């Protein structure tokens, strides 16, 4: 019988295909490997990321759901909680025990009851409300705090970039 991780991922894929939550598309990159997913996330409405469609990839460990997957955006992102190489830094993706930034309480950490859907929804809310204490991207955090307009401009450029629209002058 296939491993429990594989069956769980298949179940989640099925669930996401049957009842896709708003603003999220996700699924395995290839049918042969269910442990690498691609996801498209739309920027939440009413925020500077509104209208953007951001591609990301999720890499699942072989002991999923006991360990959290890794998520990173494959497009350019400028956000306090996203490293410059695209890796997403939110507590739901961190296993209880390790705390890279030293500020997260363990009850927002990964646990097997979380799911891809919850991760992606958390990422959407992270896009809407950055946690500027995290400092995965210090420049972005600083800009978010001190120069919100500049941040919005950068975000708009990114949104246009993901949509393939040339940036307005």
């Amino acid at each position, binding site marked *: *019988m296939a*491993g429990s991780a594989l069956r769980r991922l298949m179940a989640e894929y099925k669930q996401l295909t049957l009842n896709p939550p708003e603003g999220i598309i996700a699924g395995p990159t290839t049918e042969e490997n269910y442990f690498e997913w691609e996801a498209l996330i739309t920027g939440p409405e009413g925020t500077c990321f509104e209208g953007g469609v951001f591609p990301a990839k999720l890499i699942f460990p*072989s002991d999923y759901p*006991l360990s959290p997957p890794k998520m990173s955006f494959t497009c350019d992102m400028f956000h306090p909680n996203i490293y410059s190489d695209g890796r997403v830094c939110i507590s739901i993706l961190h296993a209880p025990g390790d705390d890279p930034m030293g500020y997260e309480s363990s009850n927002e950490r990964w*646990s097997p*009851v979380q799911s891809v859907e919850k991760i992606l929804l958390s990422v959407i809310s992270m896009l809407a409300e950055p946690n500027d204490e995290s400092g995965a991207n210090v420049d972005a955090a600083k800009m978010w705090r001190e120069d919100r307009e500049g941040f919005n401009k950068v975000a708009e450029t990114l949104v246009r970039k993901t949509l393939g629209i040339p940036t307005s002058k």
Partner: protein
Amino acid sequence: MSTTTAAAAAKMTSTTAVAISLVLSSCVVANAFRQKKQFYPSVVYICKSNPSMAIMYMQALVAVYLIGKLTGKLFFGSLRPAESERLIEKAWYAVTETCLAFTIFKDDLSPKFVALFTLLLFLKCFHWLAEDRVDYMERTPVISYIFHLRIWLLLVILTLGDVYFVHDAYTTTMAKGPSVQLVFGFEYALLITLAANAAFKYVLHAVDVHSDTFWESKAVLLLYLEFFIGLCKAVMYVVFLIIMVRTYTIPLFAFRPMYHTLRNFKKVFQDLVLSRRAIHNMNTLYPDATLQDLQAIENVCIICREDMTAAAAKKLPCNHIFHTSCLRSWFQRHQTCPTCRLDILRPTPLTTQNSNVPRPITPTPGRTAQETPSTEAAASSSATDNSRGPSTSNPTHVSSNQAGSSGSSYYNQTPLQYQFRPYTFQQRSTSVDEINGNNSENSNNGIPESNNMNESWIAFMNAAGIGGGIGPSSLFNDMPQTSTNLPSTNIPQIPLNLPFVGGIAIQPPNIPPNLDTLSDEELRLMEQNTRQGCLARIKYITDIKCMLDAAVVMMNQYSSACLMAGLDSTDSTFNSETKTSDTTENDEQLETRPPSNISSETDSSTGSGVTSSSSGSEDQLIQEETEQQRIIRLKRLEKFGSNST
């Protein structure tokens, strides 16, 4: 897209590098042949010329790279991006450590030495890839026969190679004394553990893939495997460190992997111990989920998102339900409830549905529960009330939902018919109870309310020193039998008028809380330095004081009874029961009861007196004291009081 272009670019550069190297070396060879015309002299010429040798070394490296590519293709097919990423990362570390190793063996530095290290690195890469591939088995739904064949071949070849090199290193070291072969022997021995690890994992995965049902113990076996491999590695590193320090110097190059190995081993060891404890807890303490439980949560285990059956699911103290196997794997990582993160390892003495001990009185003051008037009502309430979990067979908990029934009715339904009207039974229930209560009713939970109350009362009586040695059945349920079997002439009626001392009604003490059955949550509440915790502790202390007072009162009564019996041997007033009661119809019993003599009265003042009195109350539940008898008794008491003082 960017990754593919990067990969393509990398491929381009590597191809050009290979091409350049090929061109250069062929130039060197052609040049040598052009100058020397013959094979042997041209070889000597190349060996003598440093630039030519440099180019030839380069060519050798390229050849190794190409052979690696080829064998990789043979055994692994095309590498997945994640695999090559991991490979490159590990290879960089290995190269750095090799360079560090060179510093120790700088005297031995020779082309042969470099070649051996290259071979080692080469084989290491294959071990890592084999491990990755074996792990990949768990991830893919399709495993072809060629995959099995490749893994088999690879593992056999790698193991044979490792064993050969270890043997080689051992013989060389034994023959020529310690040399760089020590490092090689150690590295290859480590690689054997890697290969063994991969092989065992492969077997486990293969068995799992071929079995039709979910293999529950696989996760446990994997953890044990990890533990033993970790142990082997840790021992090897320590031995290697000792040998190296004794023969050469501190092997800096081994520190990083050694640190990693020891840390991993420590973690695995902790996981093993903690998970064993958690799993033991789970198996012994937590109840299997019932069908009702499962229906309440739509029958899906939230860990694996699959259906649960009652036999394969466990309910945690927090009432969350998961597959036993899923919990087992999760407890290997963290010993908490996946949903609410309740710590499983905190000892929670869960008393299940059939416990006969009195329920703990839980420390949340300010909650007054009132008992239901009748057993039937209580039973029906427990049947209709869905808020009873298995751990909440607390009678008073149920009754807390039943507003409006008076506290005195609780006592009226007990056979003893005490007249503690102003006293309402104080029940404090925690929020834990409330949470527990939100689950569906446990089918085994059909204990009649009155039984629990009786038990509570027995506990009270026992603690107060009255009913010593009398079980619940003899006291309340089987009383007629007991009493009729005994010759009634010898049975005195011990005054059981605890609440009336000299005509003054005192409050009976609270039922003593059984502290053993306090749940984790409650204990934590008690430990807190908050107002609530303090109040709860104070409450317990006052309860104890109250009980001690009650015991003193009882002792006084007994001694007074004894003294009075000594004063007046023909007195029969004690035979008539002591209660002032609103129930009547006991005159005839009073008449039928013969007067008791002194010896029996003194003898039975400890235990049997209670039996008889309570048995009397079972026969004719309440005995009325005539006014005259009451006056006599009060006089006696007064007389005794003045005597004793």
